[in-house]
């Protein structure tokens, strides 16, 4: 593992930072820079983007001639199921309402573990939904619509 002559992690970091700096830098081009006296909205972000790019370059260059540590396993399954959970909750909470949206989101998130079987995950989602509704909607009085227009007639 340590036969690499350059540090892949740092290379990737450097490139990522340069890309981020590029994104912010590009977005800054449309903004007014202004003067020292009256700095425009683009002044400070422009300095920061430049700085970030510079740091990215430095990290990238320093990676050469160093040993690399492995990335390790990557949680593909986790990413595929955990990250969509809040998105799906966001997409459905207005339309379906709080209860169905939360149930679906929890059910999806629960599938991220290889240890979770279908039936227990269903039970878990039901329990979480009921308890959350009790705590947040009734207990704390959050103004959520429990069932939205998509499931009401």
């Amino acid at each position, binding site marked *: 593992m340590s036969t690499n002559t350059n540090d892949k*992690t*740092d290379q990737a970091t450097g490139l*990522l930072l340069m890309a981020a700096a590029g994104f912010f830098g590009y977005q800054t081009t449309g903004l007014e820079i202004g003067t020292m006296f*009256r700095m425009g909205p683009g002044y400070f972000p422009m300095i920061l983007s430049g700085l970030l790019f510079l740091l990215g370059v430095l990290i990238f260059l320093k990676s050469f001639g160093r040993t690399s540590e492995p990335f390790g396993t990557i949680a593909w399954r*986790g990413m595929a199921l955990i990250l969509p959970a809040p998105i799906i909750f966001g997409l459905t909470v207005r339309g379906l309402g709080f209860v169905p949206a939360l149930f679906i989101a929890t059910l999806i998130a629960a599938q991220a573990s290889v240890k979770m079987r279908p039936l227990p995950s269903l039970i878990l989602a039901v329990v979480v939904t009921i308890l959350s509704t009790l705590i947040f909607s009734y207990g704390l009085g*959050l*103004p959520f619509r429990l069932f939205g227009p998509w499931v009401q007639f």
Partner: protein
Amino acid sequence: MDLLSNLAMGFGVASTPANLAFCLIGVLLGTLIGVLPGIGATATIAMLLPITFQLEPVSSLIMLAGIYYGAQYGGSTTAILINMPGESSSAVTAIDGYQMARKGRAGIALATAAIGSFFAGTVATLLVAIFAPPLTTIALKFGAAEYFSLMVLGLIMAVALAHGSVLKALAMMVLGLLLGMVGTDIYTGTPRFTLGITAYADGLNFVALAVGLFGIAEILRNLETEHTREVMVKSIQRLMPNRQEFREMAAPIMRGTVVGSVLGILPGGGAILASFASYTMEKKLSRTPEEFGHGAIAGVAGPESANNAGAQTSFIPLLTLGIPANPVMALMIGAMIIQGIVPGPNVVVDQPMLFWGIIASMWIGNLMLIVLNLPLVGLWVKLLSVPYYVLFPIIMAMCAIGVYSVDNNTFDLYAVAFFGLLGYVLSKLRCEPAPLLLGFVLGPLLEENLRRAMILSRGDATTFLTRPISAGLLLAALAVLVLVFLPQIRSRRDEVFTESDG
């Protein structure tokens, strides 16, 4: 003596059965919402404001204050147990607290946090009582130039937080600053980096960023190895610290209290900096700085004390000037106005019962919190014995609700997913999220004060050096920078061929 009779009057007000009950309700509710990931004190206080209509002004403010510092206590619990900070201050607690939990020392970490918070709360309450008016004048000496220099100092300290590469920590901080720029420019109203999404016009939501970067990234990290090993260490040792550990936490708690009390007075960002400052200080003073980031007890004790002390002293500008130091304080002002109290310098004179009653109730509330929380430590730790594959879907559900409850903004939920991914990628690249988080929080303040200072000095950049407080702060920042880079340079010489672990 005036102070004593005033305090006696305050305790008289605060210890009526009704007020004790409201204080208890407040701290209980605060602890509950603090423990639930994602949902914060701001949202809860906003929701409870209408309830306080019906109460006496003193009772309602006592209850709201209880929610506020109760949430601080509860927030540390979540930060320690599942690496999910609900407020920027507990992001620091998460660094070493979570590592302690992974090593089976969750109980000790929680107890340390509770004890530190109680001590700090007690001292800071006393400070509020004695020094409220004179301390206010210090806060008023801070203009834009001073704030800018203070933020610079804070950011430099955040770099020292990192236990890996300083370059990467700097880069994370700058990335955080840039993310903080997302939203509407307050000087011109120009939207920046919003990709045309109006829901981001007021910037990215802090809770979404913190939950994603810390909490969700951690869940993903835990899932990657779940078939090969258990995620959480099951063998939990003692719950309470032993004598040795008490000795280790004593000095950090004292120092944290001082740092937090001082910084808490400054409106806007002061209290945020307190826990970061305390962590940096402890790391520098420690004889075993390498332990930091791997479960150092001082890394929990110091910042937790600083955070709680800051939370108490941030009441000073509220009570003496009627000026909010943070969003929660802004809500308290709203509560006062609803009750027909005009916040401002007259509150002490016109409403002594209210003023001293609130101060006394702060101490009572802190006492209640430690009495409640120490026995609860055992219960919280038991949570860790819940199988992880059951625990994390619950955490996900709580996060989704919590983030959504802040502003009822669905785009905040999409941001959670994005920052969860970013946090995971960054952890794979061995970049630490804490400097990014601080950069994000301070970014807008840094820019706002820089631009304001430049307008006020009519474009003269020397204003930062000619104003004594500002110059002092910048000098301190320089000193910290030297301290951070020195060991790096030295170790580089020692390990010419071996890379120091990134």
